[in-house]
């Protein structure tokens, strides 16, 4: 697929890298020569220096033959303008990043009237993700799966959990309640477990289950993690703003600490339910006084990664609440993950995940039958959704009789409105949407899972 990306900021760079790795032909545009060089030095993409909203620059980048156009510059207006011109010039589909809440309220209008296939708001997406975690605090990460009917939940096994020392087979026998373990991270390694896999303390487990079954499951394994009633948010940026909106009627009380008085006043007047505290984020006493220790969750959303990590470490030291930390840079991800902070939120990754999923889904219409794709463990384990065709060798046979390859797993089967979390005795039928979890394999068809 030929893809043009305007804007080589954080999101643009991540997108260029990941789309390029996926085998697309990527061209990046930025007004700054330096920024373009940063990208072209690292990945095999074409760089064009210039204003992405001008006809000439777009011609240089080959807009007339492009399939997808993504505008992720810092300015919403510029992004919209780029997309409109690109749409006029070529036959490409357009995606724009829109940050300003005033515009993003009108997403539907923008999509319809300007012909955008997708409007992305990294901050809003991040806020949604945070809200999801707050509603389901036991998890490190929750993603809607198979059209949102089931959820993919990632959590870390604590010491006192009854699951430690149990094998996957035993778990299914003793606790089975429609929960499927689909991937386990131990240290730097990722595993796709078979029945004999034994859980250990500190394993990061990814399960697929409906929300109800998952709740029961967590009760059964005595995983503590009560529902959260009060949250302390540190930093009052765009994500905080969206978070207030999403959680307004959820019964979760928000306390926001922000150092800029004007921002505080804006937040206070817009979201009357939240209590807004004006003070320095580094003020230890103030944070303790405002109840850092008793907060059900602490969300660190300041502009600096270092500050967020420090704040989370401090919160972990003083209290026992759920920790959510926003980070911008992912290069040191494996170092940070050793710090044992519960959930990391990275807006640029959320955004690029969304776009990647869209790109792969569009490719599907060009022949292969892949629907959507999820990244379960960064760069190691992926989940792919397939539509099973009439002539597939996988249909009509109970799952336990099929000769599966190592490191693949059927995570869910959607049939009409029903979603099945599969057991060995289940049978796949033609027309089913099947989610396959696999360890870094490029699956092109559902039949690829067989030996």
């Amino acid at each position, binding site marked *: 697929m*030929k893809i043009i990306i305007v804007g080589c900021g954080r999101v643009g760079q991540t997108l260029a890298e990941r789309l390029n790795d996926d085998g697309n*032909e990527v*061209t990046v545009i930025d007004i700054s020569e330096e920024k373009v060089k940063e990208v072209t*030095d690292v990945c*095999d*993409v*074409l760089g064009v220096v210039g204003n992405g909203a001008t006809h000439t620059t777009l011609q240089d980048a080959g807009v007339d033959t492009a399939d997808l156009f993504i505008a992720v510059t810092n300015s919403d207006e510029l992004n919209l303008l780029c997309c409109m011109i690109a749409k006029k010039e070529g036959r490409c589909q357009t995606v724009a990043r829109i940050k300003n809440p005033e515009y993003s309220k009108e997403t539907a209008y923008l999509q319809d009237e300007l012909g955008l296939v997708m409007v992305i708001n990294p901050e809003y997406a991040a806020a949604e993700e945070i809200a999801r975690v707050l509603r389901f605090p036991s998890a490190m990460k929750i993603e809607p799966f198979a059209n949102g009917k089931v959820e993919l939940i990632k959590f870390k096994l604590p010491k006192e959990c009854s699951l430690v020392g149990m094998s996957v087979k035993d778990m299914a026998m003793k606790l089975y309640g429609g929960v499927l373990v689909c991937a386990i991270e131990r240290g730097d390694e990722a595993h796709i477990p078979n029945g004999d896999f034994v859980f250990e303390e500190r394993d990061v487990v990814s399960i697929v289950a409906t929300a109800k079954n998952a709740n029961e499951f967590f009760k059964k394994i005595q995983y503590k993690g009560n529902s959260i009633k009060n949250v302390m948010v540190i930093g009052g940026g765009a994500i905080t703003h969206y978070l207030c909106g999403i959680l307004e009627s959820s019964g979760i009380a928000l306390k926001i600490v922000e150092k800029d008085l004007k921002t505080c006043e804006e937040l206070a007047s817009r979201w009357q339910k939240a209590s807004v505290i004006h003070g320095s984020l580094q003020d230890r006493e103030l944070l303790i006084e405002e109840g850092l220790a008793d907060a059900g969750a602490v969300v660190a959303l300041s502009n600096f990664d270092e500050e967020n990590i420090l704040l989370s470490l401090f919160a972990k030291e003083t209290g026992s609440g759920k920790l959510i930390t926003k980070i911008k840079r992912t290069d040191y991800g494996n170092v940070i993950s050793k710090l044992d902070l519960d959930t990391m939120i990275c807006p640029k990754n959320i955004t690029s995940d969304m776009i990647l999923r869209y790109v792969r889904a569009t490719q599907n219409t060009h022949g292969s039958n892949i629907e959507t794709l999820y990244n379960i463990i960064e760069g190691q384990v992926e989940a792919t959704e397939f539509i099973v065709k009439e002539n597939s060798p996988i249909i009509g046979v109970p799952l336990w009789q099929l000769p599966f390859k190592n490191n693949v797993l059927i995570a869910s089967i959607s049939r009409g409105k029903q979603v099945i979390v599969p057991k060995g005795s289940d049978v796949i039928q033609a027309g089913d949407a099947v989610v396959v979890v696999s360890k870094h394999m490029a699956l092109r068809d559902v039949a690829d899972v067989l030996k």
Partner: protein
Amino acid sequence: MNFGIIKRTLGFILVFEGLFLAVPIITATVYWEKEFFDILLTMGLCFAVGGVCMIGKPKNQNIYAKEGFVIVALSWIVMSLFGALPFWFSGAIPSYIDALFETVSGFTTTGASVIPTGEALESMPKCLLMWRSFTHWVGGMGVLVFIMAFLPLSGARNMHLMRAESPGPSVGKLVPRVRQTAKILYVIYTVMTSIQFVLLLFGDMTVFEALNTAFATAGTGGFSLKGDSMASFSSYTQIVITVFMILFAVNFNSYFLLLRGRIKEAFSSEVRVFFVIVITAITLITINLQISEAYAYTTGEAIKHSAFSVASIISTTGFVTENFDLWPAFSKGILVLLMFVGACAGSTGGGVKVSRMMILYKGATREMKKMLHSRQITNVTMDKRVVEREVVQNTFAYLFAYILVFVASFLLICLDTQNLTENFTAVAATINNVGPGLGAVGPAGNFAFFSVGSKLVLIFDMLAGRLEIFPMLLLFSVQTWKK
């Protein structure tokens, strides 16, 4: 320094060289020549050594700038060392250093020969002549570029390789993928070579001659099959060669843009300046030849010979129709200067390159303006785009390094050869990858009389010229090898 990936890439190169040797092997089979076995032996050696080098995939696959330069410099050296073997094994060129000189001259598309024109050249086995011409074709566009087009060298940093191998101050891609870009370049290259081959067949050349000449023109090399180079062929043949020498000296990006229908962009300022230089030089030499009474050329002949010589020298090919060593000093002077100007960036030709000359000129005028108006803010621009300051600086650094290499080589050669003109033009003809110089190294002479030491210096010059100076200098720099 990532030695694993360097070793592996060199292995790839040798295996590919083994494959390239299939061309002379086919020739030897067709003409039933006994040198078949010498080439086969070389091929076996290439596969064996290359195969051993490729064993074991290195864990770290990253090619950074440092590795890029080292790989490029070493691969050209290794390729020449092995490519010289057929000449040496067969005894066609008895000394290994001479054989190496001939091969380096081939790969770097110089065309300077140690084989005396006349008897010795005409009696060379056809398969070796074919290998000589084919090294031009391979070296013209670059071996690493070729490998990139066909092998997925893993790692995204292959651009470092292409940058180090392709001629010109700044190398851009035509399409997003390096591999695709390399493929497009080779397709354009092959198609143009084929067209020339077919056109030559319509003239008075045999198939063998036409193929050799097409290879040598495409790479802007200049090895010829006859002692008098192209002089004894018909005017038609000479005109075809003139046109194609100029075509291969034009930036290949222009052809890509032409194919895309972007005509305005295709005629970039560099290409326009190149044509202005060519036409001016032809006019001046024609007038000079006509005015001096010593030369009995008709106007048509004068134009034909001056056009051929100018095209041959500025494209750094080095074919000859007329011994320009006997021309008036003014004409000779122009030709020597054209050696330094060279072809366009991104072509197969050598020299300093027209675009670098333009940047140097504009950079110098900018500095002078600044002396008058110290607060004036000015930029060097090409095609209405600002040339990055870094590129301008790099170009000046290139010029200095170029002069440094030139002066050092010149002095070294003066140690054992006495004629200044010959020494100067020998260095100029090798570092600019032209081929013939003036005097004993002129169109009627050859490079055989130099001592072994001088030949090694000239070999270094040819490689330095083809690889744009820096890779060869960096290869011998302590900084590169420091941990």
